[in-house]
């Protein structure tokens, strides 16, 4: 029994010492990494937990010809809040698993409509389209090319977006109030943030570094192989009561691709400043929401990004980005202000 306990004690001692040693090795690896020289993948045994908040303010949209239109001229407003969460874990120095999810809350208001049938009974309609909820979960495996040099990094990603989030809209709500001499009717459409159909994810990312400068190119592509199914709600007024009924429809989401180029400057060991450009394209899809299959046109939007990353401790860094819309087609293009923190640890070593 004593021998047995002694063996357990020795094993525990070895584990403890090795754990401390590996933890210290992990810390020393992180301590020597600035934002610029940090590899695109996390290290073996490293877990990175990142979370952030973004404010999305849309004041412009772009039409099919790429003309910029002020939303206030069209009576639209759109504002959103997004919280995102990402986990990265390094199985080896060259293989990383990632999981990402976000929570969105977005409200779009359209131009109010006042109908004066008789001077004594004017009606004012307002419409709010809300999108709220968790997104689908993205799971990816990232393979880093086994280059010896630190000057160049190349990572290939493959993954799947799992349609686990709710995507069917809730029954709309309405509210009737009398104020200012108007019968104000407000419709609220309650959409969800899920896509309703899974997607394959493919991506490639490369980074070239010098002592103070870095350039990153990134391309990712999402393909939705299957058509999705959703419900739409219709309201009808019957004896002063608005009732709702739902009907099913099918849709096909267009492929989504994102291209980003980022140049960065390591001003001090703790401060990295970057300037980038990114463009997002959503290919053509279709929807049968109106009862007949209709084309959903291709959408594009591009933005310039300006930001900084501060290395608070070797384990913790904070990244702030302002994304300014510069162009697009058939889409809203929001100004995005985001703050993100990342914490790193070596939990299982």
């Amino acid at each position, binding site marked *: 029994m004593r021998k047995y306990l002694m063996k357990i004690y020795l094993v525990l001692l070895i584990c403890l010492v090795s754990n401390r040693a590996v933890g210290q090795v992990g810390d020393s690896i992180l301590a020597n990494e600035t934002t610029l020289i940090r590899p695109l993948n996390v290290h073996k045994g490293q877990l990175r937990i990142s979370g952030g*908040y973004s*404010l999305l*303010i849309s004041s412009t949209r772009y039409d099919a010809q790429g003309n910029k239109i002020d*939303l*206030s*001229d*069209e*009576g639209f*407003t759109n*504002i959103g*809040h997004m919280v995102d969460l990402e986990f990265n874990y390094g199985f080896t120095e060259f293989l990383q698993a990632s999981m990402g999810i976000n929570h969105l809350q977005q*409200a779009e*208001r*359209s*131009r*109010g*409509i*006042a*109908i*004066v*049938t*008789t001077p004594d009974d004017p009606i004012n309609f*307002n*419409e*709010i389209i*809300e999108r709220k909820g968790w997104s689908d979960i993205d799971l990816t495996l990232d393979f880093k090319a086994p280059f010896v040099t630190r000057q160049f990094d190349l990572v290939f990603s493959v993954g799947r977006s799992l349609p686990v989030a709710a995507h069917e809209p809730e029954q709309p709500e309405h*509210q009737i*109030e009398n104020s200012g001499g108007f019968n*104000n009717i*407000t419709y*609220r459409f309650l959409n969800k943030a899920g896509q309703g159909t899974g997607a394959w994810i493919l991506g490639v990312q490369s980074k070239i570094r010098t002592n103070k400068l870095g350039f990153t190119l990134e391309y990712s592509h999402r393909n939705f192989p299957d058509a999705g199914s959703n419900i739409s709600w219709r309201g009808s007024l019957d004896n002063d009561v608005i009732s709702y009924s739902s009907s099913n429809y099918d849709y096909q989401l267009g492929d989504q691709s994102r291209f980003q180029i980022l140049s960065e400057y390591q001003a001090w060991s703790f401060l990295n400043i970057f300037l980038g450009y990114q463009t997002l394209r959503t290919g053509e899809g279709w929807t049968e929401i109106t009862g007949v299959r209709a084309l959903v046109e291709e959408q594009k939007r591009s933005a310039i990004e300006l930001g900084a990353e*501060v290395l*608070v*401790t070797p384990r*913790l860094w*904070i990244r*702030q980005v302002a994304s300014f819309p510069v162009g697009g087609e058939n889409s809203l293009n929001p100004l995005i*202000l985001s*703050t993100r923190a990342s914490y790193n640890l070596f939990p299982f070593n």
Partner: protein
Amino acid sequence: MKKIIVLIAIILPVSLVNAQVQEELTPLEIKQTTVVTQPATLKKGFLRAGAALSFSALDKFFDDDTEKRLFPDNIWAKSLSYQFAFQYGVSDRLQASLAIPFRNEFISQSLLLEVPLTNTSTISSWEIKGNGISDIELGLIYQLVPENILRRAVLVSAFLTLPTGEKNPTDVVDEQNYTLPTGSGEGSLNLDMTLRKVNYPFSYEGSVGYNIKFGGTKVLNVGEEPVSFRSANLLTLRGAYNFHLNEWLAFQNDVFYFSFGEDEVDGQTGDTKRWALQYAPRLSFQIKRFRINQAVTFVLKGRNSSADPGYTMVLQYVF
């Protein structure tokens, strides 16, 4: 025995001298202290100058049942305010301050008016803006119980707001064409008591404040005559837990509870209960004597109050 006494007599003063040296900071070092480690009030002769920028947009509110709701109207409103603030150490225990705020307000709305009887429909879109100086604030903070070796302090403060901003709509053409006011139109006095303790790398603060509004007269609705009014007095409770993430970056956590009294308009008191619970995480970067603070204020819960988050950035420098 004599030798031991002599030895103790030598060691004791040396030890005391060391302790004093550890506590004492040079003026330059004091100017470089962070929001966690800085003295409760500015040292005598020190001047802190700063600029602040705040942004918020109108989107959501808490209703009378404390439920968070979206504003139903088609309205887009945003508020950008910026201010220049100066704080001066009159003595090691008394700090005076001056804040000069400016406001930039923007409201846009659009309406489609349909009149079936005349078979007409009209789209009206209008934007209302306001830009200018707001209400200047003067303040005094006094260390009632001065910060001691245990780094505890009790502070009392008084801030007087002067109605220097334009209180009425100007350039009025009609209800859709005018310039928004940038002032409140009334003075106010805010009295506050704060308990502060520093236990490096942490600091804790708790405070209670009461804001008394003096009222005044102003135009509340465009095109109408000015009426007398007095905004609701405000009780504020605050708790703060701050700590260093590293030597030059502090993370502040402020929780506020606001309880509003009743507004008065033309001698009539309203009966709307209003309160709000807010959480404001802040990052404070200290780069030598230069400081950058960033905060996002989230409204956790409330009643008849705004539910929109606000963003604030502050730049400060100590001379």
